[in-house]
């Protein structure tokens, strides 16, 4: 091998870096622009839950006579449908991570001087906004169809807290799956397990106490069960019956805080796992 030419000394530069807030905002703006260019991603997750709230719930109310517990069944299912719209919305958002990977666009982001966690958090920010819009539309449609919601400042806070943390959890699940599953087809195949199954077990359509004892016990470990109970406590069930079915305590406020803590714990854990999975999968 020939000798290497003599090097010319270079001076150490002062590297220029984006501020964390600016980098996160840029990544979120990118994701928002890509999402806006694909309206299906916004509308499709809403269709099923909207049909559930607008068509299925009133029909079941007529067929079964409702819950016989002083809670309006349409409102009960209206909130229950949130437990479907958030997972579907997040799963769609996770799909775009696979699209980024396959289209190659992810490589430019990986070469950028920003921590790789920001790539996950930027997507999460857009998933949160999108889910919030879908939930507002869903509850609005349900109210227009005859659902009765008791909106108070405290209720909004509980509802928003539960919905936000559950969205963070679900996006963590979606991002983790997207990092682990190489193909879109396989990823879509995971939807029933992560979105549909918990929806049926978590008391979206009926109180968890109506299920066999073993399934009720399982339901208590699902973050969706806690999130739905909180959201119903916030808007349709001030007595906190759903929370009492989980905790069996005398103080509904304590039960609500405990359920919020459970959802927060799941959200924090899945966010950490998803960041780790993404960072590991991004570097070979």
């Amino acid at each position, binding site marked *: 091998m020939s000798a290497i030419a003599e090097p*010319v000394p270079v001076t150490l530069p002062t590297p220029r870096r984006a501020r964390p807030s600016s980098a996160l905002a840029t990544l979120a703006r990118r994701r928002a622009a890509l999402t806006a260019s694909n309206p299906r991603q916004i509308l499709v997750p809403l269709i099923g839950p909207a049909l559930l709230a607008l068509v299925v719930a009133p029909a079941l109310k007529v067929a079964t006579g409702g819950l016989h517990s002083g809670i309006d069944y349409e409102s009960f299912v209206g909130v229950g449908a949130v437990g479907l719209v958030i997972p579907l919305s997040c799963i769609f958002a996770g799909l775009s991570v696979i699209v980024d990977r396959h289209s*190659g666009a992810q490589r430019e982001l990986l070469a950028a001087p920003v921590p790789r966690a920001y790539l996950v958090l930027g997507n999460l920010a857009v998933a949160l906004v999108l889910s919030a819009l879908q939930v507002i539309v869903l509850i609005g449609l349900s109210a227009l169809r005859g659902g009765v919601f008791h909106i108070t400042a405290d209720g909004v806070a509980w509802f928003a807290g539960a919905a936000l943390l559950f969205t963070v959890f679900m996006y963590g699940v979606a991002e983790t799956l997207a990092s682990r599953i190489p193909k879109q087809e396989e990823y879509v195949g995971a939807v029933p397990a992560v979105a549909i199954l918990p929806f049926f077990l978590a008391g979206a359509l009926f109180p968890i106490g109506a299920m066999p004892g073993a399934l009720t016990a399982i339901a208590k470990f699902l973050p969706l069960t806690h999130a739905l109970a909180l959201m119903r406590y916030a808007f349709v069930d001030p007595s906190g019956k759903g929370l009492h079915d989980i905790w069996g305590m005398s103080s509904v406020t304590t039960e609500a805080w405990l359920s919020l803590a459970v959802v927060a714990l799941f959200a924090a854990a899945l966010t950490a796992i998803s960041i780790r999975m993404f960072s590991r999968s991004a570097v070979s």
Partner: protein
Amino acid sequence: MYAIEAINLRKTYPGGVEAVKRIDFEVSEGEVFGLLGPNGAGKSTTVGMLTTTIAPTAGTARLVGHDVARSPLLARSVSSVVFQEAVVDGSLTGRANLELHARLWGVQPARAKRRMDELVEAMGLSDLIERPVSSYSGGERRRLEIARALCSEPQVLFLDEPTVGLDPRIRHELLDVIAGLRARDDLTILVTTHYLDEAQRLCDRVAIIHEGSLVALDSPKALLAELGHEILEFRVDGSPARALESLRRRRIAGPDAFAIGARVTVPLHSHAVTDVLAAIESEHLRASEITTRVPNLDDVYLQLTGGAFSEAA
């Protein structure tokens, strides 16, 4: 300090595939450095390690003094990459793609706008820049990707097979663009390619990588000089290996003579063409298509690697 340093750099993928085997090289500021080799030689893995998307198994790599493993953000902040395959957001406009890069690399908005306007003009993208990138041709997209990489005024620019898959006219246009970047003496460029004419045209020095190891590193001129001023080629009907062996026995062919398929290549050095022809005659080699020509980098590569390159290219 160098703009790029690779010291004992090694990458073994899970499953034991040793893609890069302890390579060392340094690139000075303002230098255009070519990494040549066939597909699978380890070029993209090397670029991946230097750009922090592939974790080295062993060794050290630095960009402008920043260790890519210990300070990846600093290393990424002084560099940009134009990847081998399309790496754009197709549904966004060209301008949106440039803005995204400038923001992520922390370029001040006013400076970024000025820089983008200059680059869009220089790359001939003015008429396209507001269109979604999905409507661009391959060459237009490549020019956009180069403009994007330069938006952040990197000190080190990686061009990974920048002309692969482009038609000859667009390829030559793009080579002009890249050659124009040489005028910026503060920009260090590492370009990988398996088109040796590109390397000869663009690079101050080239490293030839073969099966994960560097087999040569020097200026194209110095590498060519090793084969002398002229080579003789012929096609042999029979065993090329035996033909080569008999010419070596007669000391007409040196260790740098090589055979690829049925074609034997003999650097002439101090021999006259007639000496080789006489040897062919007396060894009763059934030779045809005998020609002489000036050696090029393909010959250097083929001589060093035994033909893998021609198969890949």
